[in-house]
C-alpha cells in the first residue's frame, strides 16, 4: 500500500520525524504473506508543506531519514546510494522529502512572488489570473492590517492562519498542474488510479499547520471525489497545544505604536546575543526584532483560543474532507524554556504528543477505522495521562486485523531483538552452532558472509537503538519531552552493552536446570516476556534465501507474540 504523509508546518514535520523513528523501531502496519506483523511491503513518501525551508524540525527529519536509509541498507544489500530506503524489516521510505514550499508559486512574469510577503504574493500577476493590477492594497485593506501584508513569511506564518490561508489556497490550486513548482514536487499524476493513504498533520493553533491542513485536505478531497475508483483515503491529525513557548526576549509594542530602523538597531544591540538570535546574520536579527515588535510570534496565552477557533472551523467547513481525523493535545502543555520564532534555532527533541500523533498515522495506514462513514467516534485517552510524565503504557494502541499493537510491547520486543542479536548469537563460532542455532545452518555454506552480516546487523541495531531513544527521551531541563524517565531507564539496560546489564538479562533468560522454562521475565513497564536463549536459537525464517531484514522481523515477531501486558496479551 502507498502512503503519503503530508507534514504541514513545524509540528507536522516533527510528527513525520516521529513516524520515521517509529517505523525504524519496528512498528508494523500490516501482516505479510507469512502472517508476520510488519510494515515492509508498504511504501511511504513524506511531503513537507512549509515556507520555513531551513527549520530545525526539517533538519531533524532529514537526520532521521538519513539514519533510516542507512538502517535499511544494512538490512538489505548495503547499497546506501538509493533514495528509496527499502528492506524486509520496515516500510520503504523515499528519503528525499518532497518539499512543497507554499511560497514557491507559479510565475506569470519574473517579478511574480519574489517578495516573500502576503502583499508580494497577492500583488503578483499569477495570483490575479494574469491580470495586471497596480496593487491589491485597496482590496485587502478591509481584511488585513498593513503589518500583516508586509511581514516576511519565509519562516512560517507566525500563528496567523489568516495570512497563510490565502497563500495556501493559491498553492493548493497550483498542485493540479504538474508543470508548476508545487505540482512538480508533489507529482500527483503518479497517484492516479493508485490506492493511496494520504495523511495530513499540522498544528491546530499555529500558522502554517492551521491554514495548510484544511486547504490541502479540501484540495485532495476534491480530486478524490472526482476519481472515486482510485481508492484514495484521506486522514489527518490535528495537534492542539502540547507545548507552550516562553515569552520572547522582549514584548511586542502596543497596538498602533510605530518604530523605526534606529529602534530596531537598538533592540538588536541589546538582545542580539540572546539564544533566540543564535546563528543569525545582522539582517536576520533585524527582521526578527521587527517580527517581535509587531507581535508576529506564538503567544502562549492565545494558543487555546486559537485551537478552539480551529476546531470550530473543522466542524463547520473541513471535517468532511477526512475519512479519519485525529486530535492530539495536552490539557496542561509542557513548557519550553528556550524561545524561538522558527528557523534552525527551533530544535526540540520529540515530544510525547508528536509520538502519539505518529501512532495515529500508523493506525490510519494499517487501515484501521475509528468509526464508519456515517458516524463519528470521539475517542479519548484516560483522564490520568500525565502531560509531563507519560509512560509507554499510556500510548494509544491500534489494530492490525484482530491483533492489537501495543507500543510498550513493540519497544520491549525491539530492545530485546538488539540484545539477542548482539549478545546471544555465537558470532565468533557460528559454524559450531548448527545444533543450537538455526541461523548457523543458514551460514553453513555461506561462511564468508558471517563477518559482513555481523557488522551490518550491529550497525542496523545501533540505528534502531538511536530511534528508540529519540522517541522516548526523558525530560530535559530546557526541552520537555513529556516522557517519564523510567521507561528510558529500563530500555537503556536492554540496549546497553555493559557487562552488568547483559548478565542481568541473561539471568532472566537462562534456562532452569531441569525443564526448558526461563528463570525469569524480562519486563518493560506493564509488559513482560518470558523465553530462554535456547528458544531464541530456534527462531529463524524458513529456507535459505532470507535477508537480514527478514531475520530481524522474524525474531521481533517471535518476541512480540510471546509478550504480555498486565492487561492481557
Amino acid at each position, binding site marked *: 500500500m502507498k502512503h503519503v504523509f503530508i507534514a504541514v508546518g513545524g509540528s507536522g514535520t516533527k510528527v513525520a520525524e516521529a513516524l520515521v523513528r517509529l517505523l525504524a523501531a519496528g512498528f508494523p502496519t500490516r501482516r505479510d504473506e507469512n502472517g508476520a506483523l510488519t510494515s515492509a511491503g508498504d511504501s511511504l513518501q513524506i511531503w513537507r508543506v512549509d515556507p520555513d525551508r531551513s527549520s530545525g524540525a526539517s533538519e531533524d527529519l532529514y537526520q532521521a531519514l538519513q539514519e533510516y536509509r542507512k538502517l535499511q541498507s544494512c538490512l538489505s544489500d548495503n547499497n546506501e546510494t538509493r533514495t528509496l530506503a527499502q528492506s524486509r524489516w520496515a516500510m520503504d521510505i523515499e528519503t528525499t522529502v518532497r518539499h512543497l514550499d507554499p511560497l514557491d508559486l507559479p510565475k506569470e512574469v519574473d517579478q511574480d512572488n519574489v517578495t516573500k510577503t502576503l502583499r508580494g504574493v497577492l500583488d503578483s500577476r499569477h495570483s490575479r489570473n494574469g491580470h495586471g493590477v497596480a496593487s491589491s492594497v485597496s482590496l485587502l485593506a478591509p481584511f488585513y492590517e498593513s503589518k500583516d501584508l508586509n511581514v516576511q513569511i519565509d519562516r512560517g506564518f507566525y500563528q496567523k492562519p489568516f495570512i497563510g490561508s490565502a497563500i495556501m489556497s493559491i498553492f493548493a490550486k497550483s498542485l493540479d498542474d504538474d508543470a508548476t513548482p508545487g505540482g512538480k514536487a508533489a507529482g500527483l499524476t503518479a497517484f492516479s488510479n493508485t490506492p493511496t493513504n494520504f495523511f495530513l498533520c499540522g498544528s491546530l493553533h499555529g500558522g502554517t499547520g492551521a491554514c495548510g491542513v484544511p486547504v490541502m485536505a479540501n484540495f485532495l478531497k476534491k480530486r478524490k471525489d472526482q476519481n472515486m475508483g482510485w481508492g484514495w483515503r484521506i486522514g489527518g491529525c490535528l495537534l492542539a497545544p502540547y507545548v507552550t513557548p516562553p515569552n520572547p526576549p522582549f514584548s511586542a509594542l502596543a497596538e498602533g505604536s510605530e518604530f523605526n530602523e534606529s529602534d530596531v538597531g537598538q533592540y538588536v544591540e541589546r538582545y542580539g546575543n540572546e539564544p533566540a538570535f543564535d546563528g543569525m546574520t545582522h539582517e536576520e536579527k533585524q527582521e526578527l526584532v521587527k517580527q517581535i515588535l509587531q507581535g508576529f510570534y506564538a503567544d502562549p496565552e492565545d494558543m487555546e483560543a486559537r485551537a478552539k477557533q480551529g476546531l470550530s472551523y473543522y466542524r463547520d467547513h473541513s471535517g468532511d474532507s477526512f475519512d479519519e481525523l485525529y486530535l492530539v493535545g495536552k490539557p496542561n502543555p509542557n513548557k519550553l524554556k528556550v524561545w524561538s520564532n522558527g528557523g534552525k534555532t527551533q530544535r526540540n527533541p520529540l515530544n510525547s504528543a508528536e509520538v502519539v500523533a505518529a501512532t495515529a498515522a500508523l493506525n490510519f495506514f494499517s487501515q484501521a477505522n475509528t468509526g464508519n462513514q456515517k458516524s463519528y467516534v470521539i475517542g479519548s485517552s484516560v483522564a490520568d495521562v500525565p502531560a509531563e510524565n507519560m509512560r509507554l503504557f499510556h500510548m494509544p494502541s491500534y489494530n492490525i486485523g484482530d491483533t492489537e499493537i501495543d507500543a510498550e510491547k513493540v519497544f520491549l520486543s525491539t530492545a530485546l531483538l538488539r540484545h539477542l542479536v548482539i549478545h*546471544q*548469537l*555465537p558470532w*565468533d*563460532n557460528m*559454524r*559450531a*552452532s*548448527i*545444533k*543450537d*542455532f538455526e541461523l548457523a545452518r543458514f551460514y553453513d555454506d555461506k561462511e564468508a558472509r558471517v563477518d559482513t552480516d555481523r557488522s551490518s546487523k550491529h550497525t542496523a541495531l545501533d540505528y534502531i537503538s538511536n530511534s528508540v531513544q529519540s522517541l522516548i527521551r526523558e525530560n530535559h531541563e530546557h526541552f520537555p519531552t513529556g516522557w517519564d524517565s523510567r521507561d528510558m531507564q529500563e530500555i537503556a539496560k536492554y540496549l546497553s552493552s555493559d557487562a552488568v546489564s547483559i548478565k542481568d538479562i*541473561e539471568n532472566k*533468560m*537462562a*534456562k*532452569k*536446570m531441569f525443564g526448558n522454562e526461563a*528463570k525469569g521475565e524480562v519486563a518493560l513497564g506493564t509488559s513482560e516476556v518470558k523465553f*530462554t*536463549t*535456547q528458544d*531464541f*536459537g530456534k527462531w529463524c525464517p524458513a529456507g535459505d534465501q532470507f535477508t537480514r531484514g527478514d531475520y530481524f522481523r522474524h525474531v521481533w515477531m517471535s518476541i512480540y507474540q510471546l509478550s504480555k501486558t498486565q492487561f492481557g496479551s
Partner: protein
Amino acid sequence: MTTFGFLFQYEFLETLFSATQENPGTAKDWAICAVVTAVLAAGLIFAVKGLRKYLADIAKRKIWTRRQTWLTIFMGLFPIFLFLFLIRWLYGDFWDYINVPDLFKGVFYAWVIYLVLMVVGHLVSPWRRELI
C-alpha cells in the same frame, strides 16, 4: 576387537615395555590397564562435556570453541598419568616388574589411545565442528 588385538600382541608389547621379556603377563596387564584407563578417561571427559552442555543455562554457552575443546582434551591427560602412577604403586606385580621407564611408556601409550579416542569421538559426533 581383532582390529585392536595387536595392541596386546607379544611382539608389539616387546617393542614397548622392557618388562615383556621378563614377565610377559604383567606387561600385557600393564598394557590392558593403560588402554582401559584411556577409554575410561575419554568416556569421562565426553560425559563431563555432555553434562556441561546439557546444564548450560544460556544457549551460546553450549557452543564450545576449538580452543576450549582442545584444552579440555588435554586436561584429560593428567588424570591418566595420575591413575596409572597410583595403579603401579598400589599393585604389587606392577611395582615389581614395571620400572619407571615402562611407567612413562605406559602413560604415553594411554595418552595416545586417549587422544585418538577423543579425536575420533568428536569427529563422529555432532561436536566435530568444535574440534576442526
